[in-house]
């Protein structure tokens, strides 16, 4: 179990990136949802032992990660948001190298394991090619391969689907889902669909604060009867935006198709009640949080 207690991180400036996060995460896929700059990456880096917090504690299976970051490293699979590789190594050599650094072994030997892993991320054809010739998606897949390697007790993936095409994204979902069966997979994203597809539980953070800890179904349930759907021209859209929380506005054949969150169940005229989605729930949470605590200048990173 991963337990986070009153975690605070203040960058010089000062910029308060985390303002007292408390979380308990059990085995399974856990999503961390939040807008850009909410503090997700800071939290992920602290958990991965790459960033020292200002205060607070992080325990993984009883081991204090803050005091002893080494305690998690051999049990960790980590895919950072931004990363690179040695450009002159081949994908295969790079992966072999990283497997050795991570102390990973397999019955068939490390070379065979490397080939298997590259196959799983669909990079077999480029295994012998130097990484400096890889596209962004290929690098991301190589990153995925190293993150899932071994038998990590916890996998931390930060915005993992960025740069992946839909096919690869689905493939990655499948891998993560499989891994989440018997370990913690912590998925940080600002893409609500990733959480909707994968996570049994998720947290929403904004400006370094936890504003929700729930499940996708719970989140949707709380909005039942409060989401309405309808159409509007541009003039009316502007009016609705001033009176209601618009969770989605799509322009289809010149007409705006809107989804509106109305906590008072007072939809604009002509709008019909509809089934809430997770995206509705996320945006409603954001709107509520914004109303409660307006964003100030230097509060988060």
């Amino acid at each position, binding site marked *: 179990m991963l337990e986070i207690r009153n975690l605070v991180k203040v960058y010089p400036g000062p910029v308060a990136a985390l303002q007292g996060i408390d979380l308990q995460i059990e085995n399974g896929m856990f999503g961390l949802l939040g807008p850009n700059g909410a503090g997700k990456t800071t939290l992920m880096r602290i958990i991965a032992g790459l960033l020292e917090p200002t205060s607070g504690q992080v325990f993984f299976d009883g081991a204090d990660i803050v005091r002893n970051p*080494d305690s998690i490293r051999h049990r960790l699979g980590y895919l950072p948001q931004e990363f690179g590789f040695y450009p002159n190594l081949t994908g295969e050599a790079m992966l072999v190298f990283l497997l050795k650094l991570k102390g990973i072994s397999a019955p068939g030997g490390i070379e065979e394991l490397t080939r298997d892993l590259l196959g799983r991320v*669909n990079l077999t054809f480029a295994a012998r090619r130097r990484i400096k010739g890889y596209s962004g998606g290929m690098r991301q897949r190589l990153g995925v391969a190293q993150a899932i390697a071994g038998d990590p007790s916890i996998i931390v993936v930060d915005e993992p689907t960025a740069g992946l095409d839909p096919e690869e994204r689905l493939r990655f979902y499948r891998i993560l889902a499989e891994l989440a069966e018997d370990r913690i997979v912590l998925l940080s994203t600002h893409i609500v669909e990733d959480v909707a597809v994968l996570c049994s539980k998720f947290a929403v953070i904004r400006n370094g604060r936890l504003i929700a800890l729930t499940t996708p179904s719970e989140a949707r349930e709380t909005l039942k009867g409060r989401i309405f759907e309808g159409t509007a021209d541009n003039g009316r859209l502007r009016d609705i935006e001033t009176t209601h929380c618009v969770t989605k506005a799509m322009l289809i054949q010149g007409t705006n198709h809107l989804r509106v969150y109305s906590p008072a169940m007072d939809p604009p005229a002509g709008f019909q009640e509809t089934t809430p989605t997770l995206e509705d729930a996320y945006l409603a949470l954001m709107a509520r949080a914004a109303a409660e605590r307006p964003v100030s200048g230097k509060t988060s990173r």
Partner: protein
Amino acid sequence: MNRIRFFSVFRRELSQNVRRPFFWIMILLVLFIGFGISKGNVRVVASGDAEIGGTKAWITSEFSNAFFDAVLIFILYIFFISVTAGLSVIRDDEQKITELLHSTPLKPSEYVWGKALAVVAVFLIVLSVQVSASMFFNHAVPHTENIEFFGPFQAAHYIRPAVIFGLPVIFFITGLTFLMGEWTRNSRLLFFLPVIILSVTLFFLWEWSPSWLDIRIDRMLMLSDPAGLRWLSQTWIKVDQGTQFYNHSRVPMDGIIIGNRILFTVLGFAAIGLSQFHFGRVLRRSKSWSLKRRNPPGYNGSETIRTTQPAAAYRPLGELGMTGRTPSFFETFPAIVRVELRELLFSAGLYLFVPIILLNAFSDAMTSVGPMDTPLLTTSGLFAVNSMEPLTLTVCLLLMFYMVESARREKATGLAPVYRASPVGNFAVLSGKAAANGLVGVLIVLVFLVVGITAILVQGRVPVEIKPFAVVWGLLLFPTFVAWSAFAMVVYSATRNRYSTYAVCLSVLIFTGYRQATGHMNWVGNWNLWKVLQWSDMGVLEMDRYALVLNRIMILGLAVLFTVLAVKLFERRTPDASGRLNRLQFPVLLRLAATLIPFMIIPLAAGIVLFHEVGTGFQGSVREKAEKDYWRHNLATWKDTPVPDIAHVDLDVELYPETRGFAVSGTYRLINPSDKPLRRFPVTGGPDWSNLAWTLAGKPYEPENRSNLYVFTPVQAMASGETILLGFTYEGIMPGGITRNGGGSREFILPSGVVLTSFNPEFVPDLGFHEEVGIDEDNRYDAKVYPDDYYEGITGPFIGPNRPFTTDIRVELPVEYTANSVGMLKNRRIENDRAVYHWITDCPVRFFNIVAGRWDVRKGDGTALYYHPGHGYNVEVIGQAMDAARKYYSDWFMPYPWGELKISEFPGLAYYAQGFPTNITFSEALGFLAKDDPRTQVAFFVAAHEIAHQWWANILMSGKGPGGNVFLEGMANFSSILLFDQVKGDYARMEFCRRLEHDYGENRQKDSERPLVKVDGSRPGDNTVTYNRSAWIYWMMLNLMGRENALTGIRDFILAYRDGPDHPALQDFVEFLKRYAPDSGEFDRFVAQFFFDTALPEYRIDAVESNRGDDKWWIRFRLTNAGTGEISVDIAATAGKRFSDDTGESVPGYRESRITARPGAGESLELLIACDFEPERLMVDPDVTVLQLKRHLAAASIK
């Protein structure tokens, strides 16, 4: 080019750079240097009157500033500029803003020029601070102690040199490294550039200038020196122009320096222009270029690049059976080394610059120069030791850059989060990277090894030995690399900033060099072993082996300590500011220090022992104090006190080379030479003697011990002519302890050889107070000023006793050694498995010595040459010189009075030869290892010179006073000229005279120079006057008098003065020889100019016109004497080559036509030479018979 965009880039780059610690460290450095120069720690222009109150060369003159700027700006700025300019574009790439920037209307020209000129501006700021600091420290707050070195303030004296010597360097290095960085986008590659430029310039362009170098090559080298120092030094500083000139003149510019400065400025700007062109091209083609580079093998261009393939059937991950654990050091270390090496091998720098290093090293090896500008044979040991410094400097710099780049490779490539989140240990990471970079160092050393072996093989005379390379590079150099790498790593771990790391490491290198240059270094601080090694083929590093071992243990211990510290400081987790503050609290730091204690023990213990050994060594503070006490205690009472003469020496000497020990038991029979009774007399004893016991008149005696000066008071005062027996026994060590900072020793007992002399009181008691003991810069006083008529009446000897004495010396030592001493070998016997050599004098001597070694011997005609078995290269040449010298000197001066003439080789722990009577000692580096050729003939010369001292010092001793040494050393060199002429012919004699003249021209100090009769060795520049100018003057005098007249006069002179009691001064010499001069008026004029004045002709030829008549060519020209002497000189119009450079023999077909002229000082003469052939060249003094300045200018081509 849009001005706003250009200035926007310029301002951004400028403001980024001036905010970096790098910039401020540079500013601090130039302030510190400005202060140091003002304080007078460094002098550049050697000219000046050395006497107290004499005019000094100002450090504020344009010449001094030019010299400082040329050296400092080049050495100091080059790395800072390279890093700043080279990384300018690379940094944008690393920050991933290049593409963003160039998606704007910003043009390559605005980007490249904005950035490059901002770097130039940064260093112009630094230069301005440097110049302002110099002005401030020199004029606003000058050091009162050095007030005589400060001239009046003139801003131009600072600004002009900075512009002329500083700006082109800044432009050139900025342009070149900017281009490198932009072109390669490889930060490692651009660091090679300054290393190579610096090493080529420092060790070749500034250093290599043998006297025989062709003027055209010299000019080419001047032109190719980016600093302009070679030109400045060769044209204006080497040949002293005098204080007045240096203090008041601007640096006169000529075509070479103007061309040089323009060339490097243009090259700098051209490089920036090329960078703009290349940058624009890459931007325009980036898409197609990058696609092409990324194409996989077999790609035919018709299909799109495949980045995915159809998915295979999915298998659960669990089926792979993967397990993870914390890997061990031994699992990860090799993997890291391999990957690091692989990345390093992709560094183009290795392939581009290693060949350049190779060429540099090769030329260094082939052009190594020994004493007297003589090319040396390159042996394995000499190559290994001589290349230590360039190798240490270049490899340490490369290691620093590679280590830092390696340490931040993950950050630069973006792998850092993955890498640091893995369970690999810090120790494996750091040691793996260090090992990979160390292997690069090893690779370069191996390249050097190949170069060395090739150089030795190409030379073809000396066998290749691997042992010296293994010892010097393997045992001594390698620990330096290890420790330096660890140091760079610990600095990077502590600062996490490459600029700070470079700044700290470069500061350490500069500080080390500064301590070396100012003579403050010792074994404890000398981590890189600069200037400490003295190689000898006869014994491997025997002199300071103990110090070397301790020093290397200390350095390796420090390497371990640094590694541990680096591991502790290396933070994989980005620290929190508050956490960092907590870790800086005293208890935390104390705990960190406590964990380091086990790793401090070895370096600390080695350092303490070394420090103690340095202090108690023979150059240490303990000895220094004892010598000072000797001087302070006795100067007033015992300086110039009368002492008895030695009439006979009887010595039993036991030598123990393995332990450096010796034991002496002996007696001096002393005689009172004075006509007054002698009540007491002092004897100076050795500083490291133990179990010392004295006897006087055969009875035990306890003299008064005045800080090692023993005062003997006989029961009754010694009457005039009375003798008394002084006895002594003692034991000692020679040398006593280690040196202060390496180097050699003039006298020693070592397994490789023994050299002991009666010159110093280290080995045998020395009668009287020893005036030089205990003198240093603090208490040095001016030499005694003698009245002009000091030589009239009886004059004492210049050195040594008033009269010669006899010796009876028995030397006991291990049987494998041969012991030589003065006189003839009476017998050799074996006692208790030790050999005993018994030497007695067959004719009295003035000095004695003992030299021992394991030699082969070459016997000649009354001569014997004892040499190291591996040094047979020049044995025949030296042997022939010995035979010839003994024969001809006997004919010319006086028959040799002793039975045998010996030369014995000793290890190259000092570069000298000493002409003891019958028993000359030669350092291996003199003659034995000379690259002897028809041009240099160095082996012949050294032998000829030292053998001449048998006559000039041993047979005839000059008088005590100014000119005394001028007579002895000058006559020895003059005798060598005669012997060259006799044995080797015109070409060799002329080359030898040219070399003496060149040395004199380069080393004379115009303002300090005094006439020969006044030279006492106390002033800078006296040495070259003593040896070279005086030899030339005697040679000119011989030509003036006629050879036979002069030699007859010299023979009679020896006979007149040989037996004393008066010892001749130079005034006696010229007065005596005047009787033999055919034209006494001409002789007087000559003597007045060249003995009693410092006359020196300097000829120029110009306005040359050639006209062909009916049957002749008429050459009209102007001959000017820009110097100060007046003497007849030949001028020849020549065609063809006179001598072969290879053999020195006359070349058939050479033709010449001569006239003689006598231009007075400052006078010009219009002259005409008729030739019945078509002449090619005009040459003043074709036979090299008139000493002159700048001989190379006294010639002209005839068009």
